[in-house]
Structures are given as structure tokens and as C-alpha cells.
């Protein structure tokens, strides 16, 4: 059994946590120097903490050959990226993923894809409205940005040209089991989110890419 709690306690140290968040946010390979600079610490200290995170299974490390070949190009650099496996700690124990998987099977058996998408859309609208309310209660009253909502929902959005790409699939395990159903529901949910915050739902569309969320959000109307 994996020790999820043990792994997560490795993030107790604020420097280590900052390093982890920097690597996770980066989305690709991060070198020691880059990480050290981001965390405002020495390269040696960064290397120590990064390797601790690898030991805990939160990051993965590999050696990257220098781009220039031949003499003077130096040794391969050690680079880090977020480990793909999930860590979940729930106290008391909860297992929503197992139930969600069974429910997805039920949707399949019932042929209820359309209703499932409808429910996902409605859920998205509710979540969007709630996000607006939460935001309005805070100090800033300016319109809630789509990016903030997507960030809050765990999509890890990043702006790429005229689009917002979503680096993380919050429903990854289920999407692996029921890709068509879950990706369709996810699109409906994103469209609902946009509707809920008063934006244009059709800005969210399907544009799957390997290792990313299947949905892309246009920054402007009429993509």
C-alpha cells in the first residue's frame, strides 16, 4: 500500500513545498538552478529538497543530456517533474472515486450519456454561480476571471495564444475508465461554469491533447 500521508508530510517544510509547487506549476522538466532561483535558495539546498521530494514519490527525476554535444558541453543535468501518480488523504477514509466509477458504469448500462451531460452542465452552472458569490463576498468586486475559476477547480489553466489550455484533468482516473463519457461530461461542466459566471458557454470546446484536459477555453467569443 502506498503511504500517501507519509508522502504528503514531506510538503510540511515551506521551502520544500514552494519547490514542489514551482515544479508542478511549470508542467515540464525543471532544472535545479531554475528551482533554486524560484524558491530564493541556494542550488545545493534546492537539490537536497528536490531529491527528498523524489524519494517521497512526489517528483520524478531524470538526467537530461546537454543540448550541445562534444567537449565542454558539461555533464547531463538532473531535471525534475511532477510524479503522475495521485496522492489522496481523507480522514475519516472516503472513497468517492470507486463510487463514481460504479455510477459511470450505471450511466453506461442505462445509455444515459445525454442525461449525464445535462447533469454535468447544471452542476457547472451551480459551481460557477457559487464562485461568483464567494468572490463578491471578498474584497474585490470586479468580475471573476475565467482563469481563477478554472484554477480553483484544479484545471491548472495556462494561456496559450488565443486560448486557455488546461494542463490537468481533475477527473483523470475516471477519464481513463470512461473516456468518452467523462470527457463529454467535463466539457458540459466547463460550459456550465462559464454560464454560471455569466460568460459565454460556447467558449469551452473539445480539443484533446495527450496528457492534458480534453477541453480548451477560448479567450474571445466566436472561436
Amino acid at each position, binding site marked *: 500500500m502506498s503511504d500517501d500521508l507519509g508522502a504528503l508530510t514531506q510538503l510540511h517544510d515551506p521551502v520544500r513545498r514552494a519547490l514542489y509547487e514551482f515544479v508542478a506549476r511549470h508542467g515540464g522538466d525543471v532544472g535545479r538552478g531554475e528551482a533554486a532561483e524560484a524558491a530564493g535558495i541556494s542550488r545545493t539546498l534546492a537539490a537536497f529538497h528536490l531529491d527528498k521530494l523524489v524519494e517521497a514519490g512526489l517528483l520524478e527525476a531524470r538526467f537530461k543530456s546537454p543540448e550541445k554535444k562534444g567537449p565542454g558541453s558539461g555533464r547531463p543535468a538532473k531535471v525534475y517533474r511532477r510524479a503522475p501518480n495521485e496522492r489522496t488523504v481523507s480522514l475519516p477514509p472516503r472513497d468517492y472515486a470507486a463510487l463514481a466509477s460504479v455510477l459511470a458504469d450505471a450511466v453506461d448500462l442505462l445509455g444515459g450519456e445525454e442525461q449525464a451531460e445535462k447533469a454535468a452542465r447544471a452542476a457547472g452552472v451551480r459551481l460557477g454561480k457559487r464562485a461568483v458569490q464567494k468572490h463578491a463576498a471578498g474584497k474585490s468586486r470586479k468580475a471573476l476571471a475565467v482563469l481563477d475559476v478554472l484554477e480553483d477547480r484544479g484545471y491548472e489553466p495556462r494561456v496559450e495564444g488565443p486560448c486557455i489550455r488546461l494542463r490537468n484533468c481533475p477527473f483523470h482516473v475516471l477519464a*481513463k475508465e470512461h473516456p*468518452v463519457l467523462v470527457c463529454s461530461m467535463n466539457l458540459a461542466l466547463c460550459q456550465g461554469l462559464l454560464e454560471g459566471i455569466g460568460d459565454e458557454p460556447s467558449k469551452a470546446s473539445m480539443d484533446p491533447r495527450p496528457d492534458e484536459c480534453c477541453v480548451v477555453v477560448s479567450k474571445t467569443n466566436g472561436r
Partner: protein
Amino acid sequence: MHLAELNIAHMRAPIGSPELADFVDALEPINALADAAPGFVWRLKEDPNQPRLTVKHDFGDHLLVNFSIWESLDALWNYVYKTHHLDFLRRRREWFKRMAEPTMVMWWIPEGYIPSVAEAMERLERLKAEGPSPMAFTYKDSYSSEEALAFMNAPLTKSESGVVTSRNS
């Protein structure tokens, strides 16, 4: 080893009917997407010069057969679910009947070998009859090529009923 994949679909209407028109129109671009996908090896074509033709076979008029070979499970996955092919999968109910039985099967093959459609259909039958195994599996219960090799090379065993079962069909 390479990965062979067969999927079948029961059309709601004949292939030339208006109900299937959007599907037939999509054949050329979608197949081009497959052919260009990383890790694509081979795909059964009725006629390389007629990309809108579907594969002819002896398993029923309303049955559509898709048969292809890939370098890995990930390569096939990334084509099927991580390209615009997904948009067409989402519309599958418009064109194809819902089936209670498995419609897709995968298994490992030696590189360079191309199984026949009959062999592919046998794999699907095996999946239906026995459930997923290293010899015929699905994405939900998938097996690596190492597991398939180990399974094939394992000595024959006697089942509880005393019947010697052959692992390799």
C-alpha cells in the same frame, strides 16, 4: 511487440443512407488522422485509393469493422481519445446501435505479423466468452506485452475440473 485492435459497430442504417452520411464524410479525415498518428503501424483498408470505402467482410451487412495495428497502448489511446477522433466517438449513438457485449478487443502480436479479420473476430469472441485476459483485453483491463508473453509461455495447467486448458489459442 505490436498491438492489434479490432472494433466493430452495428450501423443504425445502411452505409449509403442519409443517416450515416456524416459518418461516411468523416471517414477520410479521421482515417488520415489515424495514419498520421504517432505509433500507428497499419490499418485494414478495403481499397487504398478509395478512402470512403468501409471494409467488406462476411460477418453481417450492418456490421462495421475497424482493424488496426499500433506500436503501444498509449499510441492507440492518444489517437482514439486525445485527438478530434473523440468528437466522432461522442456522436457514435447517432450512427451505431448500443451494444451490451464488448465491441472492442486488443491483443499483442509479433512485429511484422498481420492477423486476418477472422482471427481478430475470434479474439473478440474470446473476450466475450472468457472476459479480459492477456490474449484478448480491453483498456479497462489491459495487459502489457510482457504479461502476454509470460501467459503464452506458461506451462499448460490443469484447471480445477481436471481439464487441461490451452492458454494460447
